[in-house]
């Protein structure tokens, strides 16, 4: 992997779970195409490399960087800015980088509270109440850990992003297709889409890929999937299952709904949807079949965690970006 003639490739994880890396490895033999066409210069999960090695590279010397994870701490931000400088094409890869994803839900709480929860709950074995400190003096000198920010930001809230590739994680067949495209571009056989495009996904919604039958909707109660026997043919939302498919970008081949589970929205907002959660709230509210305020209230109680239902993946990337406590006390 030292062929200097090959264009350079990097992949990085910021605030993320690692699933995106596995998804890339899950493209099976196509990974060989990556190796054949690129020199992998930086990919912490797969190979050893130091930040200083990247810092030493010439600006713009990496052709393609897949950046997954949101920006939660100053290390994340440092690497995001570094890789932006060094890369010609920076791709926000996966839901965290695109829209914040699950780590973004922490934007509902002040950062201090998150740390407290992590180090001081019944499930935490921390008898001496030890908390992390940003810096610590040891005989060898001061050591530091990254400083946590008040909120998690998406990649494009920090640096300029060339392409977005949604999904939690992106589907392997979509990753494969994007790699095929980039390889073709390298060989002059294809053109890159316009900057700012969403790649590796469709342009409509999950409903477009869903084969379930659908009718005019009217919802009398929201149900959890384990409470009812699901009609395998019928639209889940019509059965009262809060399926996020109608607002979610297509591209996953409607995998969850085909398997009988509701779409939870990991592919993010459909093209043209500005605020994913607000869209879904308006849509669900529109089809509630009642005019009685008390009854409506009772129906809405069927969604016990609205932030988790409507903003599970999109909170950091939404118009609101965070809950008030995170702004105020962060």
């Amino acid at each position, binding site marked *: 992997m030292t062929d200097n003639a090959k264009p350079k490739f990097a992949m990085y994880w910021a605030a993320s779970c690692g699933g995106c890396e596995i998804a890339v490895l899950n493209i099976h033999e196509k990974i060989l195409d990556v190796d054949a066409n690129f020199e992998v210069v930086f990919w912490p999960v797969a190979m050893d490399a130091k930040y200083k090695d990247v810092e030493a590279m010439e600006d713009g010397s990496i052709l393609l960087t897949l950046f997954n994870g949101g920006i939660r701490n100053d290390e994340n931000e440092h690497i995001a800015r570094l890789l932006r400088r060094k890369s010609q094409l920076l791709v*926000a890869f996966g839901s965290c980088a*695109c*829209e914040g994803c699950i780590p973004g839900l922490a934007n509902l709480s002040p950062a201090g509270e998150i740390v407290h929860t992590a180090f001081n709950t019944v499930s935490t074995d921390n008898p001496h109440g030890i908390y992390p400190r940003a810096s610590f003096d040891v005989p060898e000198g001061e050591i530091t850990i990254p400083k946590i920010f008040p909120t998690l*930001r*998406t990649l*494009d*809230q920090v640096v*300029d992003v060339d392409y*977005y590739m*949604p999904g939690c994680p992106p589907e392997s067949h979509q990753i494969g297709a994007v790699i095929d495209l980039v390889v073709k571009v390298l060989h002059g056989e294809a053109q890159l889409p316009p900057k*700012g495009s*969403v790649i590796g996904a469709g*342009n*409509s*919604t*999950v*409903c*477009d890929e869903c084969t379930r039958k*659908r*009718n*005019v*909707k*009217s919802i009398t109660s929201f149900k959890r999937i384990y409470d009812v026997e699901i009609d395998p043919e019928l*639209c889940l*939302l019509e059965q009262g299952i809060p399926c996020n*498919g*109608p*607002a979610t970008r*297509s591209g996953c081949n409607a995998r969850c709904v085909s398997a009988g589970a509701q779409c939870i929205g990991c592919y*993010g*907002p*459909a*093209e*043209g*949807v*500005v*605020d994913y959660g607000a*869209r*879904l709230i*308006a*849509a669900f509210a*529109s*089809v509630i079949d009642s005019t009685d305020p008390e009854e409506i209230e009772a129906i809405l109680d069927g969604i016990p965690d609205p932030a988790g239902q409507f903003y599970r993946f999109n909170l950091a*990337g939404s*118009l609101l970006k965070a809950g008030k406590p995170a*702004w105020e006390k962060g």
Partner: protein
Amino acid sequence: MTKHNGSKPEVQERIGVYVCHCGTNIAGTVDVAQVAQWAASRLKERGVVIARDYKFMCSSLGQELIEKDIKEQKLTRVVVAACSPHLHERTFRTACARAGLNPFLCEMVSIREQVSWVHTNKEAATIKAQAAVSGGVERVIHHEPLEPMTVPINPATLVVGGGIAGIQAALEIADAGYHVYMVEREPSIGGHMAQFDKTFPTLDCAACILTPKMVDVGGHPNVTLLTWSEVEKVEGYVGSFNVTIRNKARHVKTDLCTGCGICQEKCPKKVVDEVYEAGLGYRKAIYTPFPQAVPKFPVMDVDNCIYFEKGTCKACEKFCPTNAIDFTQQDEVINIEVGNIILATGYDIFDARRVSHYGYGRLANVFTSLEMERLTNAAGPTNGQIVLRDGKTTPKAVGIIHCVGSRDRNFNNHCSVICCMQSLKFAHMVHERTGAIVYNFYIDMRTPFKDYDEFYQRVLEEGTLFVRGKVAEVTDAARLPGEEGKLIVQVEDTLAGKQRRIPVDMVILSVGLEPRKDSSETAKLFGISCSANGWFIEKHPKLDPVATMTEGIYIAGCAQGPKDIPASVSQGAAAAARVLGKIQQKEMALEPIRASVIEEKCSGCRICNDLCPFNAISFHEDTMVSEVNAALCQGCGTCVAACPAGAIYGTGFNNEQVLAQIEGLLLLNIGEEAVPA
């Protein structure tokens, strides 16, 4: 993945900003000159080339100012900061059009209703007005030139409801030479007015003034009268509605029937007449509700007809001289095309049984006002004799209770408008016909229209006793001497400041008016809105009382709210005038603010399908996309907001425009940081 930070593209537009003083309405609270100066300097880079303030922008001089600037300064966009667009949007759009600018490139910013009228701090109000103007400027950049769509107007009109309001409307239009279809669900037109005896305050006979109009409708060459019929479906839009009507089977062939009445005479089955006679009298199983019914053809009540029950009888058929009886007749479904629709569907009477402490239905001599109308009517079950439930005893003391079911938080908050005058009318009639002592129990006396208060004075002078207070109870449980065998009215006399028990022989409950039980379904059928309690909602409560938010659908009479006969007639005529105005135009321009589905983005999830209050959305099963009918759409935006995929585009209110306006309001457009990152 939405990005709103970073540099904005350079603005190519030339924008004029006009700040109105509205006398002191705005200038008293907002420093309008400062707002104009601020816009000229701070919004220069956003395309503002000129900003002025003026005393009354809506005056012809104010409008000329804008027109002159459009021509001389080559403006491509106009922002007017003044009152609400409800008032003057059309004024300024028209001014722009006169100067050759597409009228939809003008944006109004409300700095009166939303700023000066709701604030007192001049400095803060001025800053808010500046922000509002900034929002308007940012929004107008994204406006598109729009062209209105024109649709032809079918000159025929549908009038739903054959009461006095509908009759008036139908006659006005028919007399003007245009065709009217009148649909009435009862066997005869006439409505509630046909049940009344006298009309207040003139005491002329209701039938005497109503029946000539009914006859006019029945015989009018321009009226197609469809009684015993109901509207089932309404499709289309202003100028071209397609209406499906179910003409229920009468079991009488109307082309053969002469209305001679022999069938009714010979029919052996007597049925209590709950509708026309308010349960006080009988009709037959084949009947016309009253002798002057229009049309004259009877209907067969198949639920009570002996032949339909037992398979034998057919007395009507045997005796009918023209063989007009048809036991096999089926409902007929008719389709008509009309350009406009007037809804005059009337009201229901409040069910007095709901006020159980007044004893109606339990205490024999408690009557409702409608029963009283029938009792006093010379053609009624007692030939106009006011007698107790036994049919013979004349009451010596009568209590009339006002506001039954009205102005009562347990039932209806509204005032039913007619009850005071109706109660005074009964007081007069009882006094005149029986010489009984009459007590009127009222909360407030409301006699506001022409000659009404004079009538109240007359009844006062006749010796009717007025007790101001809400009746607590009507009971037959005697406690004091003299109460045996009487109805006792327990009331707090608020003027005397004490509780009273007044024994009477007869109690009349002046029941209120309620929306029709099915008014919300009717509203949905015709795509108009009705309030939570069920009255149809007019386009503007003061300035547009007979139009609705749906173009081409008008309302008249009590369907809009309780009112008396003169008001119902006025509304019927007003609705007709509006319709005639539309017909005269022959075609009309539709506001181009409307929704459209972006086909490629629509995944056919069908969330929008049942939401449109104007029934403008249809779903194509073959292509799996929904479609908004442009002529039906009124631009309300419901579907635009509901579409989870962002696949419905609302002209004039698209994402770009609204988000740009928000950025402008927050002054992000001129680089002010609103919230920390």
